[in-house]
């Protein structure tokens, strides 16, 4: 954040110091006026540019920045819908959620999902890309890349309900195969111990193709001379992967890590669609918790408090990751 905020402050400071210099001068007022005129002229010259920016900035201020302030404020008061009266109750909303055991289980699940999705999201798609690189025929490679991106394109509802159909205990093909092998049919979505694993698996099944595209772009950029030199030196294919391919994509790994950490706590759709009352305790995350306990019941204070709490955690993770990977927004 420091990196983002810096130029703004700098810009203001520069203007402020300019004004100070003008004031300390003997004929300060006149010079200030000319500076003002200069600003006006500059703005008038760029009117078209400001008009073009206006809708986007207006939208972001109303729908992105205003809710942040509003959310923080809301978490400290008793929110009553249809009433403009504001009675502040201090930390009571936070106390309410901290005393709720479902909040803690949701928080624990959020961390577990975040860790595995982040780790596998980086590692598995990297592994897939490295493996894909070993396939030499361009057509096959292209076909695989295109196919495994396909689930990414579909919505979570489509993927989720397809899995619900495939793994259904009565009509699902997977269970029919199990039955043909003489096994009992298994209710996958009702099994508490494996419910988290199943959700992580489905998530990875859906998103791996996205990472593969990013990694493949980096792998294709590696010059073939490195591989040729290695082959002449008698390096086998495993060693090629470990000593040439992986070091060359280390920057991409950092980028993927950053992307994954930024989206780490925002899991909503798959949990909302695929968890049910049986597995809820093991799969509920903060976002579904907020939706279920506050928005569906119109009891918004605790929900706002929980949102602020998890957002602060998310922000800390993002900033730490940014520091560690040295990955900034250029310009």
């Amino acid at each position, binding site marked *: *954040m420091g990196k*983002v905020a810096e*130029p*703004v402050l700098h*810009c203001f400071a520069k203007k402020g110091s300019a004004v100070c210099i003008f004031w300390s001068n003997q004929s300060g007022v006149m010079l200030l006026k000319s500076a003002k005129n200069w600003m006006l002229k*500059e*703005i008038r010259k760029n009117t*078209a*540019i400001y008009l073009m920016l206006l809708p*986007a*900035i207006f939208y*972001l201020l*109303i*729908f992105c920045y205003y*809710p*942040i302030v509003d*959310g923080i404020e*809301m978490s400290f008061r008793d929110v009553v*819908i249809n009433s403009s009266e504001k009675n502040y109750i201090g930390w009571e909303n936070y106390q309410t959620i901290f005393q709720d055991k479902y909040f803690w289980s949701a928080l624990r699940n959020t961390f577990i999902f975040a860790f595995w999705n982040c780790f596998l999201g980086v590692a598995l798609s990297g592994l897939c890309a490295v*493996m*894909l690189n*070993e*396939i030499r025929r361009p057509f096959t490679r292209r076909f695989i890349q*295109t*196919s*495994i991106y*396909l689930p990414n*394109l579909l*919505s979570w*509802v*489509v993927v989720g*309900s*397809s*899995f*619900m*159909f495939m793994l*259904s205990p009565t*009509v699902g093909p997977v269970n*029919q195969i199990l039955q043909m092998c003489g096994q009992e049919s298994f209710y996958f979505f009702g099994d508490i111990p494996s419910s988290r694993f199943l959700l992580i698996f489905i998530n990875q099944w859906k998103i791996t193709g996205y990472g593969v595209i990013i990694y493949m*772009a980096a792998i294709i950029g590696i010059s073939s001379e490195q591989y040729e030199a290695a*082959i*002449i030196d*008698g390096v*086998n294919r*495993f060693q090629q992967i470990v000593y040439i391919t992986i070091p060359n994509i280390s920057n991409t790994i950092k980028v993927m890590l950053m*992307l994954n950490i*930024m989206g780490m706590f925002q899991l*909503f*759709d798959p949990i909302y669609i695929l968890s049910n009352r049986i597995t809820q305790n093991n799969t509920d995350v903060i*976002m579904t918790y*907020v*939706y279920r306990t506050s*928005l569906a019941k119109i009891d*918004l204070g605790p*929900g706002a408090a929980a949102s602020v709490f*998890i*957002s602060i955690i*998310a*922000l800390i993770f993002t900033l730490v990751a940014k520091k560690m990977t040295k990955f900034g*927004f250029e310009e």
Partner: protein
Amino acid sequence: MIRKQKKYTLIKKTWGGFVLDFVIRLFFFLYIFSIFWMFWQLVVTSISPELENNSVQIRFWPNEVTLGAYAEIWTRSGLNVAFFNNVYITVVGTAAHVFICTLAGYALSKPRFPLKQFFLNLIIFSMLVPSQMIMVPTFILYRNLSLINNLNALVVSGMVSGFSIIVMRNYFLGIPASLWESAKIDGATEMKIFFKIYIPVSIPGFATIIMLQMVGKWNTFFEAVLFINSPEKQPLQTKLNMIINSITTMAQSGQSSYVNLFGQNVKSAAIIIAMIPLLVAYPFMQKYLVKGILVGAVKG
């Protein structure tokens, strides 16, 4: 020279390499098989009559082809209304998004004007805002703007994204400045330069954000769950979710007549209707989607 080649061929044909090739091919075969098997099972189930689906036999080919499930889901469950709702939010939402983001991207590609860095930071920082932080206040805000149970809520949400602005800005930065200068010398205004010169030459950049936004809008789910309650205003994804869930609960409570009404074949037909537009469009937009993903990865 001969020796080197011999070495090369020797390395190519080791047992380790053979095993590696085999494992890699098996892995990708299983992955792709799981995807296509799923689609194929959905298709087969949706075009089979209902009774067949309850038999234990697993089928890779339908014994009897009927399109009854599609007719039923289209007319009787309200999926047609949801489908056209979705078309509306996709078309209008994408058009508004592209218009606003392109204007902002063009403005930010200008070399210098007062407060440029401030606006740029405002846009970049908006990409870092966690969506859960603003879930509750956004709900209140939309309620105050009377956008609850209003399809326009889904058009408005996500109408501006920092990502698209940055993509368009980078595209415009890549256009040589001499084009702008020559138009300026000929006496064109800023707006005229934008609409007559910059837009026609940046069609590929447009295609990227249009495709990404269209896919996103077609798959709108979270916003619909938040803002839309009434059945006739549902977009496709929430409607599909309702259809799937209504079937399972009714099957559990043992109402056999309802099970017949929304059987597994009808359910599969609904899933296929929801994904067919994207599958049809995928070959055409694949190139642009890949480009968009790569830009996103570079820019964060």
